[in-house]
Structure formats: structure tokens, C-alpha cells
């Protein structure tokens, strides 16, 4: 593409600049598109709350291992105690959030992203 792309030696400087200008214009056009603002909004609205949630949930677990040992030692079924269940719930929540994000991205992000990607390609040719 631009900056990093490999080009055969001897490509004319002028055309490289033209290409670069076109690309910059195309990026700007996509950036201004309503769909892009929507994509950004959807992405942030998903990742920010979920990141806060899983970090808090994990730090709560670490804090309980440190400072709530009586609670963690409580036996629930046989030798299975709260500490073990809490630890396993971290696994469950991780699997769950990963699956949720995948579903969300497939349904709500990918269609917008591919539309914008196509728009970028159209704009670059103009």
C-alpha cells in the first residue's frame, strides 16, 4: 500500500505521490462516512464495558485469593470449595465473552466493515 509497500525499483516518484494522495483522500472519505462513525460507536460500546467488566471480575478474584480466604475456603460440594468454583468461573466467563464478542463482531461489525472496505476501494479508483 503506501509507506511500507514494496515497489519495484525505478517506479516513477510522481505516480507514487499521486497514488498516495488518492489513498489519503479515500481514507478521509471513509472516515467521514456515517457508517464508519457507526462502526466506531458499536465497537467502542461493546469493548469498553466488557473490558471493564472482565478486568474487575478478574481483579476481584485476585483480591479474594489475597483477602477473603475464609470465604474462598468455604466447601460447597464435597471437597470442591468456593476458591475452585470462582477460578473455574473465570474460565467460563472468558469462554463466554470470547464467544459473545465473536457473535457480535460477525453480526454487527463485519457487515459495516466490508461495506466501508468496498467504499475505500471505489474512492481510491476515482
Amino acid at each position, binding site marked *: 500500500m*503506501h509507506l511500507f509497500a514494496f515497489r519495484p525499483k525505478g517506479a516513477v516518484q510522481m505516480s507514487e505521490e499521486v497514488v498516495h494522495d488518492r*489513498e489519503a483522500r479515500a*481514507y478521509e472519505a471513509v472516515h467521514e462516512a456515517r457508517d464508519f462513525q457507526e462502526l466506531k460507536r458499536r465497537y467502542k460500546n461493546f469493548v469498553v464495558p466488557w473490558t471493564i467488566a472482565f478486568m474487575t471480575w478478574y481483579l476481584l478474584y485476585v483480591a479474594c485469593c489475597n483477602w477473603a480466604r475464609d470465604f474462598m475456603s468455604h466447601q460447597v460440594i464435597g471437597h470442591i470449595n468456593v476458591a475452585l468454583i470462582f477460578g473455574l468461573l473465570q*474460565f467460563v466467563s472468558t469462554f463466554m465473552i470470547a464467544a459473545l464478542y465473536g457473535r457480535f463482531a460477525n453480526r454487527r461489525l463485519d457487515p459495516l466493515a*466490508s461495506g466501508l472496505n468496498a467504499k475505500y476501494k471505489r474512492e481510491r479508483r476515482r
Partner: protein
Amino acid sequence: MTSLLVPLADAEPGNQALTISLFTAVVAITLYITWWASRQNKTTADYYAGGRNFSGSQNGLAVAGDYMSAASFLGISGQIALYGYDGFLYSIGFLVAWLVALLLVAELLRNSGRFTMADQLAFRMRQRPVRTAAATSTIVVSIFYLLAQMVGAGTLVGLLLGVTGDTLKAGVIVLVGALMIIYVTIGGMRGTTWVQIVKAVLLMSGTLVITFLVLLKFHFNPSELLGAAAEKSGKGEAFLQPGLLYGKDLVGQIDFLSLGLALVLGTAGLPHILIRFYTVPDSRAARRSVQWAIGLIGAFYLMTLALGFGAAALLDTGKDSAVAASKGNTASVLLAEVVGGGSGSIGGAILLALIAAVAFATILAVVAGLTLTSASSFAHDLYVNVIAKGKVTEKEEIRVARFAAIGIGAISIGLAIPAQKLNIAFLVALAFAVAASANLPALLYNLFWKRFNTSGAVWSIYGGLISAVVLVIFSPVVSGSPTSMITDADFSWFPLSNPGIVSIPLGFLLGVVGTYLGRDKSSANRYNELSVRALTGAGAEVASKH
């Protein structure tokens, strides 16, 4: 040291022959893969990113193979065998960390970078300072991790083959080093990836077999397994509760919190993990890779619970036992022998040799990934873009990367041999702390903060890197305690073994301070372009066609 080598060195010669032949098979298979992969390496995209042609599931396996080191295979189950519940704590941080990679890093990096971590920063910053900083931290993190793996390999392979004596163990380090150099110089990313995929499959299936056999012994009743482990450990229910290893006093508790932070934030900043996202055709495949990795790594850590508690229940883990002498590292291997039918049985011998070979494959795959990462960063960031200022052909660039791999391999062999006698297990946690303090702030600010600029990136990378390393140098892991790296001096003043709780916030803070002190606003110009590219994949690097 000698007591440590008793258990397997005493094994029957037949066992040893079997182990050696399985080791040879691992080496032969991986070398064949490397040779096969080398025939397809033509461009830099082939060498650094395997042509970006791996599917999400293939890369997911490779990510898991890159991530699950011998330390997590043998180390975590060993720690559970010795310290019960607390041995399990590492794996939780290691797993939850993948959500940071999935939600915030993997896809955006795939869309906006090219070969290295620095590419993504250099997109809108001044090339030379940013690439120098990012390459420095990439190489430092990778070498720390590599050293820990190689020293571990010397001890471990020595243990598994029954090799005694420092010279022979040094020989093992040289052998492992030579193999990783061959994989990386000849096979490049494509070869390394396939080695990691094979290793992940071996590791998952080996662990699954042992887990099944352990659970079979306890009638698939986890409570029965836990009860037996608690009883045999001699520590009773305390064995199943937090507190035997970490957080004995307030300093210990803060230290544990500090470790937890580094583990959960470090993964998404580990350079050898980051460059794996460039090996897939698009961001959707990057997302699927992480989902696969989360599934595999999570399943693996769940199985280490069965392995660890199984070892505690079925093996002698007392003070003078072989398991305790090896700091838990032999637990999985000896457990394999026991569940296979016990010492002297054919089943036991086969399983022992099998798990030993799996551990060997694990070591090889991880060290190859680390060597490739630092060689790529040296060649692509330092040599091409800083030293030669971009005036390098692809062929030359690949040649430099190959020489860099040889150089880095040689340096790590040279450092690992004298480090054998030192306790350097802390280097893995330090690598995570540096990744979280130096790399993650720069990556996240670059993606999400328009005003962020070159000096902010440079400040956060060097600030996070230096503070984490300096704090560890003056901590009890380096001097001033009986288990320190240096036991005959004491210059420690920082009470925690894990610097993360100080260095991570500092790295983030310095990114802000540096940005405003730098005043340079030109980096904001291309932010819109970067965010379009990162979120939509417009103009992202495409897979090469073969």
C-alpha cells in the same frame, strides 16, 4: 543438582532408548517440516508472516503452541502438585489475558501492521525513534523469555534423558539452540508455524490421555480426586485453598496482585504473540485465531488441574521426593508413568517417553517462535528502517533476518550456559511485566488516542521497560534472599518480586507525559487513516498468492 537427576536417570535402559527414539522422531518431523516450508519462502511476507495464508484454526493452534511453554506444561502442574490451589493461579491470569488480545489488539493490529509490533506504531509516528524503541523492547522481552526457556530446557531434557553433569547439560542447550536456529533461518515463519501446530496437537493429545487416565482412577469424580490430593499432600483442606504459595503477608499479597496484573495485561503485549496475527489473511481470521487459542489454552489449563492434583494424589511429593527436588517439573512425567501402569510396566514406559517427547517438542516450538520474533524485529525495524533507511531489497532483508536469527540464537546459547546455575525462573514473569508496561501502553494509545505522538510512544516504551527491569534488579529475586539469583550479595530495596503494580501504571503515565512534553502534533494527522484501516481493514496487507 545430582539429587534432582535421580528419578529418571535410574530408569531402565529400555525406557531411555524409547525416550531417545521419540525425541529423534520429534526432531526428524520438525526438520522435515522446516525443509518443506523453506521451498515456499520467497518474499519478506513469506519469511516474516508465512505468506499470511494460515487459516484461523491453524493459527489458533500455532498461537496456543507458541504460548504454552514447558513452564506452563510442566511448571503449572508441578506447582499444583506441590502447593495445591496456588499453583493454579498463574493459569487463570494467562487465560483471562486473551480477552485483552481479542477485544483490543488482535484484529486492529492485523489490519494496521505489517510484520512487527513496530510497524503499527511507525504508521503515524517518526520511523526511527519509534522503531528503535519498539525493537529494543521486542528483543529484550524475547531474550528474557528465551533465556528462561533455554535454561529450563537444559535441566529438563537432561532430566528426561537421564543426562547428568554440567557439560552434558550445556550440550543439550547447544542442541536446542542449534535446532531453533535451523527452524528459523531455513523455515522462517511458515516452518516455525507448522512446528508450533504440530507441538500444539501433540501437547493437547498427550495431556488429554493423561487427564483421562487420572480421572479414570478417581471414577471421574473431581471431589474424590481433590480429597485424595489433599490427604496425600499432608496439608489437608489447606491444600485446596489459596495461600500455600502466595500472599503470606501484606507484602506478599501486594506482590501477588502485581503478578496478576502483569499476567493479565502482558499477553497482549508479547511480541512473539503479536506477530502471529500477521500470518492470517484478514482480521476475521485473526479473531478466529484468538477464539481457537482461548478454547485450546483454556482446555489445556483445565487439564493441568487434573494433572497437578493427580500428581499430588498419586506421587510422593514430600520434602525429599523427586518431584520436590525438581521443583515440580517432573510431576507430569512421573504421573504419566504411574497412570500408564507404574514403573517397570510397558504402558508406564511408553507414556513416560511420550510425555517427555511432548515436553521436548514444546520447548522447541516456543524457542523457535521467540528467535523468529527478535530476528524479524532486528532485520525489519533496526536494520532496514533505522540503519539502511529503507534502501534494502527484499532478498537482502531476508538475508539479514537469517543472520540475525543465527546471532540471537548464538547469544542466547552463550548466555544460557553460564546462567544454568542461577535461579532465573523470574525471567518469564519479568517478560510479562515488560510487555504490559512498555508495549501495551504504546499499542493501545496508538490505536485509541489521536493526540498520542512519537515522544509519547518513546517515553512509554523506554519508561515501562527500564522501570520494570530496574525494579527487578533491586528486588529480592535478584539479591538478598536464599532463592535469589545472586545469593552472596544484597542490594535489594524494592520489596516486591513482581514490578508490574508500579511499572504498568508508570508506562501508561509516561505515555501521556511524553505526548504533552513532545508537543509534536503531526502524528495526529494520520490517525483518521489508521483508525479507518484498523477497524475496516481498508488497505490492509493481503495474503500472498502461491
